[in-house]
């Protein structure tokens, strides 16, 4: 350790600036998110095992095309976050912000799609205790119960991620986050990618059952 003989100032920098530690904290936080959704995935697995026919029947109600489009949107938004980091590292602040704007736009479009998707379900009486849901089999009702909880929680995470990235964009604009000090941007990226990964699993599990 190089700092045992050094002065107070160096101690200060170490305490106030430890990118490695900051990243470690972020990853640990991501694990809590993984286990949070993990609980839901365990429930999903359990009920899909119990009600495999009901799940297959209910999945036909979802629009595969819309799901695919949303998948593409999220993958693209993940790409632009990474590109924003690369751009910032190359000291290209404007390009970095441009990429992050694309990410924000993707997030917004994703949520709008979700709004219409949920809206259509509600319109057909498919919601908890809704008229259509009550005529369905237990398996189908369970599918929609999980569908609303899991995609809803995921959507909430998209919103949080957008807020986080918005905050980072502000800091980039103010030159707080720069080419040599970009750990916050990277952390927001890690969060966004995790939300993307969760969707990567939600998509086949809800949309692609036959």
């Amino acid at each position, binding site marked *: *350790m*190089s*700092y045992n003989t050094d002065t107070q100032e160096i101690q200060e*920098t*170490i305490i106030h*600036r*430890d*990118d*490695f*530690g900051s*990243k*470690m904290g972020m*990853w*640990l936080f991501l*694990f809590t998110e*993984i*286990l949070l959704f*993990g609980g839901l*995935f*365990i429930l999903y*697995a*359990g009920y899909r*095992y*119990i009600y495999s026919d009901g799940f297959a029947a209910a999945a036909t109600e979802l629009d*595969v095309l819309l799901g*695919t489009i949303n*998948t*593409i949107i999220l*993958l*693209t938004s*993940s*790409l632009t*976050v*990474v*590109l924003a*980091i*690369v751009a910032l*590292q190359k000291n290209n602040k404007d390009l970095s912000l441009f990429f992050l704007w694309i990410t924000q736009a993707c997030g917004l479009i994703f949520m709008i799609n979700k709004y219409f998707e949920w809206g259509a379900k509600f319109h057909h009486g498919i919601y908890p205790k809704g008229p259509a849901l009550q005529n369905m089999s237990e398996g189908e009702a369970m599918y929609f119960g999980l569908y609303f909880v899991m995609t809803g929680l995921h959507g909430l995470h998209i919103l949080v991620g957008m807020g986080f990235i918005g905050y980072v964009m502000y800091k980039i604009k103010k030159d707080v986050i720069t080419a*040599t000090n*970009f*750990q916050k941007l*990277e952390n927001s*990226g*890690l969060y966004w*990618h*995790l939300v*993307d*990964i969760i969707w*990567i*699993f939600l*998509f*086949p*599990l809800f949309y*692609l*059952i*036959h």
Partner: protein
Amino acid sequence: MENNHLNGSDHGGHGHDDGHIAEAHHPSYGINVLVWIGLLSLTAITVAVAGINLGSLALTVALMIALVKSMFVINFFMHLKFDNKVFKIFLGICMVTFAVVMILTFFDLTFRF
């Protein structure tokens, strides 16, 4: 991939202090775009495969593709591939925990239903 971008600070505090300040270790634009194209192709494949009747294999195939996709995201977009191995171990711990919990739950479900 530029190897000199590998950040070799394996530690946890007791010795070395490289890594306090993050280094540039993201692959270039090109690599990331390639990964993105790969991800889109895998999405196309998983949608296409879903149309074929694979019976009980369908879920396995879908999950395998999703797993490959997430490995791409984790390794490249989240650059775990280029990161310190402590993060890989951490992720391993997390995933093993999840898997164990899932398996033990199914010891009940499989023999109850």
